[in-house]
């Protein structure tokens, strides 16, 4: 337990911010959560089930919310600006108040790539083209007239990821496994549907991910086609025609689908860049915040007293984000107890 009561502000109350707040509270601190949305939980709270165990996302966010209920949380509040003082940071909030703190934790998360920017895929143009987020919303609420007993469904991997022209050279990491998860869920809802995944590489690095892939192939009969979708058009009946190259076969391929799901990638949050620049915290050339180093100081920034957790530094899975939040809480604890 520390003898003074420093102020720690956590920007963002997604799972990274909540988990860090929970850990810092357990260490005896009184962190302040600043969240621009009216609710906590971030992107994960909008998701239906999580890979690889297919556990409901509520199983994670529910207890996290309950265990941080005592933490001072400013909802509907944005950080208007940050000033760097000698050993402290002064946050000016959108409600006009200010918050003087000894440590700042960026838990600002990511933005989902705007799929309509890839015009050739037809999101926002063709009715039957939806995104991963739309599909998760449908799993949650079962309310979307575009999804009506489809007989053929396609998933496009790497939408806005590994795409230098779209400004995102990096891999979003979680879309491959998310596409497989969602493909399996579609097969569970509509067992008669043919499901196609169009991929460039399948990057299934995590524990149980490869098992998930084998299950999708063998138990659900999901078809994997190696090739990036080049264009999507609309047939006269409103269905969509997808064209790609079947690169394992070396031949063009086309298929007519009732539903096409675009796996929109993870891109940086421009707000985080803005805050970082205000206080001289380095931003990496991929737009994400730059860690002190990428091996053993991922949660530390280039500035003393400023820390990172979760996808503000790049695409992360849920367990990685939680582990970083715990690590950041410990790094903040050590920073605040360092003899000066």
């Amino acid at each position: 337990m520390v003898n003074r009561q420093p102020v720690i502000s956590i920007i963002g109350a997604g799972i990274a911010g909540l988990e860090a707040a929970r850990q810092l509270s357990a260490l005896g601190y009184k962190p302040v959560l600043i969240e621009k949305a009216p609710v906590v939980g971030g992107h994960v709270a909008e998701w239906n089930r999580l890979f690889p165990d297919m556990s409901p996302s509520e199983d994670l966010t529910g207890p996290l919310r309950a265990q941080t209920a005592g933490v001072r949380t400013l909802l509907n509040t944005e950080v208007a600006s940050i000033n760097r003082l000698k050993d402290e940071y002064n946050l000016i909030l959108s409600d006009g108040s200010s918050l003087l703190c000894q440590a700042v934790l960026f838990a600002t998360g990511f933005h989902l790539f705007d799929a309509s920017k890839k015009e050739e895929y037809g999101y926002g143009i063709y009715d039957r083209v939806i995104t991963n987020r739309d599909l998760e919303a449908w799993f949650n609420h079962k309310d979307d007239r575009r999804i009506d007993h489809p007989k053929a469904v396609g998933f496009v991997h790497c939408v806005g990821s590994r795409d230098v022209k779209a400004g995102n050279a990096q891999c979003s990491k979680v879309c491959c496994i998310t596409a497989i998860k969602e493909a399996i869920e579609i097969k569970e809802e509509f067992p008669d549907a043919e499901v196609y995944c169009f991929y460039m590489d399948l990057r299934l690095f995590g524990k149980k991910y490869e098992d998930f892939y084998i299950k999708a192939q063998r138990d659900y009969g999901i078809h994997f086609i190696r090739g990036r979708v080049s264009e999507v058009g609309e047939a006269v009946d409103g269905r969509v025609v997808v064209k790609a190259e079947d690169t394992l076969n070396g031949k063009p391929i086309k298929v007519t689908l009732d539903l096409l799901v675009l796996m929109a990638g993870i891109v940086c949050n421009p707000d985080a860049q803005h805050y970082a620049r205000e206080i001289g915290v380095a931003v990496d050339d991929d737009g994400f915040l730059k860690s002190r180093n990428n091996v053993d100081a991922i949660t530390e920034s280039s500035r003393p007293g400023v820390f990172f957790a979760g996808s503000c530094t790049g695409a992360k899975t849920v367990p990685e984000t939680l582990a970083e939040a715990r690590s950041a809480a410990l790094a903040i604890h050590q920073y605040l107890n360092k003899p000066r």
Partner: protein
Amino acid sequence: MDFGYQINPSSAVNLDQVDRRRYDALVRLSPDAATCMGCGSCSATCTSSAWSGMSVRKVLLGLQRGRDAEVNRMLSACMLCGKCTMVCPRGINTRQLILTLCRLDKNGEVVR
């Protein structure tokens, strides 16, 4: 109408029209066939491929793209040595798979 010339047919595969019955029957009889990830180990080690073009990977892909004639041509070049089975990282019993395929006609009926 005859213009006195014709355009080559498209080499594009139209999945809306592909007949996958033989592949589906194969997967029913030996479900591991569906777990191929196209690594190419089988083709690289194949005793026959150098002069015949035999490739288990291409057989499985051809079945899913409606290229039955090509599949049969490749199957006829197999000597059943089983090296492909030894190298498959997914543990697919490729030798058994080839024997099973030879029993199926293009409609997926067991004929032998």
